[in-house]
């Protein structure tokens, strides 16, 4: 692994250099407090110090609304959608975000391999960047360090206001080929980037907690505050559920079948014909969301399907905090064990 030093003032030049490979997508400021991943037009507008974007990077690979099939109602023929394979560089990506893409890879490519997703993913390159955790980040609790470089081709670690650039893959080496503002450096360890929010247990102790949490009182307490808006799912980088619907043009001659992000927190999500609903109340839906993050896929893959980005907490209108729910479950589990010991 090579390491170089890079001046903060030279970062725009690096972005311009990466543009030779393909479109560069990077965080941009939206209004005063919000950030968004956007295609870079002017590299000086890219924001290097951001807490999180509202929408996760998954929007690039699994767009919020995506055409699946186009059809003609005149002759009832349909055409599959061609997804071009385009070289793209995703720049200034946080480690938890990269981990969410690795989890999406699993979700979309295991079992039936989905071509739409795979084609978008094929020529993507990732440049990571370190960040300073705010009150919502807790990725360390789910096993993702700020400097976790898995999945990245290049990684920028901030050291005293400037950067150290790590070259992690052959693709990364090709990306910086010919860029002459780098100086060979010794990797430095940065101290003091502490997480303010934590899940009290190491994530490998959580399967036990979730094994016994199905009938916990915590669900009802959380559900009593939840307004079932679905924002937590829509902003989550590892949620991938979708709805499918047909849209016909105004001439009623042709149209498209499209999918759009969906949310298991919405009351209609698990409804079937005849009005039966398998997760009718908010308690069941809240539990399902958390079990998707910490139990169902985790049991098979050994990793939480939550990457600790803090979005679901930061953007929940009811102030419902995911790490708080998990800590409450842990507390309840401890109480139950204590009770058991006492009564034995």
């Amino acid at each position, binding site marked *: 692994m090579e390491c170089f030093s890079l001046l903060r003032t030279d970062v725009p030049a690096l972005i311009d250099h990466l543009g030779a490979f393909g479109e560069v997508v990077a965080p941009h400021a939206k209004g005063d407090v919000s950030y968004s991943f956007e295609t870079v037009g002017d590299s000086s507008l890219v924001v290097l110090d951001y807490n999180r974007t509202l929408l996760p990077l998954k929007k690039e690979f699994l767009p919020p609304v995506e055409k699946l*099939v186009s059809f003609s109602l005149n002759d009832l023929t349909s055409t599959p959608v061609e997804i071009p394979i385009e070289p793209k560089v995703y720049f200034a990506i946080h480690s938890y975000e990269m981990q969410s893409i690795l989890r999406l890879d*699993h979700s*979309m490519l295991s079992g039936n391999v989905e071509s739409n997703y*795979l084609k978008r993913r094929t020529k993507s390159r990732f440049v990571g960047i370190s960040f300073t955790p705010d009150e919502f980040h807790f990725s360390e609790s789910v096993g993702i360090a700020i400097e976790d470089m898995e999945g990245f081709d290049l990684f920028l670690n901030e050291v005293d206001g400037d950067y150290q650039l790590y070259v992690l893959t052959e693709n990364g080496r090709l990306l910086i080929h010919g860029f002459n503002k780098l100086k060979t450096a010794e990797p430095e360890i940065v101290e003091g980037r502490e997480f303010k929010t934590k899940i009290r247990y190491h994530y490998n102790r959580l399967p036990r907690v979730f094994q016994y949490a199905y009938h916990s009182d915590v669900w009802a307490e959380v559900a009593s505050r939840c307004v079932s808006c679905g924002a937590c799912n829509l902003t989550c980088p590892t949620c*991938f559920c*979708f*709805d499918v619907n047909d849209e016909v043009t105004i001439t009623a001659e042709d149209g498209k079948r499209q999918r759009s992000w969906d949310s298991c927190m919405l009351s209609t*999500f*698990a409804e*079937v014909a005849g009005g039966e609903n398998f997760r009718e109340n908010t308690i069941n839906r809240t539990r399902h969301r958390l079990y998707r993050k910490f139990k169902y896929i985790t049991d098979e893959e050994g990793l939480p399907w939550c990457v600790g980005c803090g979005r679901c907490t930061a953007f929940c209108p009811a102030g419902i905090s995911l790490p708080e729910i998990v800590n409450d479950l842990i507390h309840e589990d401890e109480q139950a064990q204590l009770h058991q010991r006492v009564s034995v």
Partner: protein
Amino acid sequence: MKRFEDVKLDEAQDLYFPTMCKVTQAKQITDMEKWYELEMPEGQDLGHSPGQFVEVSAFGIGEAPISISSAPHNNGRFELCIRQVGVLTNVLKKYEAGDSLGIRGPYGKGFPIEKLLGKDILIIAGGIGLVPLRSLINYVLDNRTDFGRLIILYGAKTPNELLFKEEIAEWIARDDVEFHVTVDQGDENWTGNTGVITTLIPGLDLNLNTTIAAITGPPIMYKFVIMSLKSKQLADDQIYVSLERRMKCGVGKCGHCQINGVYCCQEGPVFNYADIKPLEEAF
């Protein structure tokens, strides 16, 4: 964990693109249900096993999961039977012979035929639940010597709602089929059994060692039927159920069909009761 690097581009599929199939026959068989025979575009085999389903689409309206009602054939044709309950199913009502429908599939896991060979088959169908089970019934009849007894319990709300009446008459006429029917509410012509489907179970004389039960019906039915079978001492793993869930993709991606952590479209819709029993959201 499946990694991006391990997947090759040529493994990828256009998962959501339907194949157009021609409707060769169509018939409204009750007030609410229409039966269709469809043909694959090149006359190829659909290649399904009893209990599997397809996603049926009408462009401009949408898609719905529908069970394949016919037994596997090699003639490129298969049958569906659709109850008109909502937007799409009411549009499908207008489809007649000569029209084309989009089909994706077959999807899901059907009945594990190899485990049923040589066994007594007890079919318990409530209402539209006969549609998927008909594929199994006809499979057993097509391969009659491979199975033991074939016992069919069928319940509908009223005599009017009974599906496949002509076929039922044939089943009744056969001496290698034990057919029992009940309706919740009879009419002036009804001389048969009235009462819910569970009333047919206590009178059954089952060989516990060799009987496999297959149940499909409205969600409410399962609990009571299973209770009844348990009181007959049938073991959990001798019971199969086909479950209904909302399905949008049919291929394990959209998340709608999950029963706790299990994707109904992938690991179901047919489940062994012993496997699905621990899941709290199953029934």
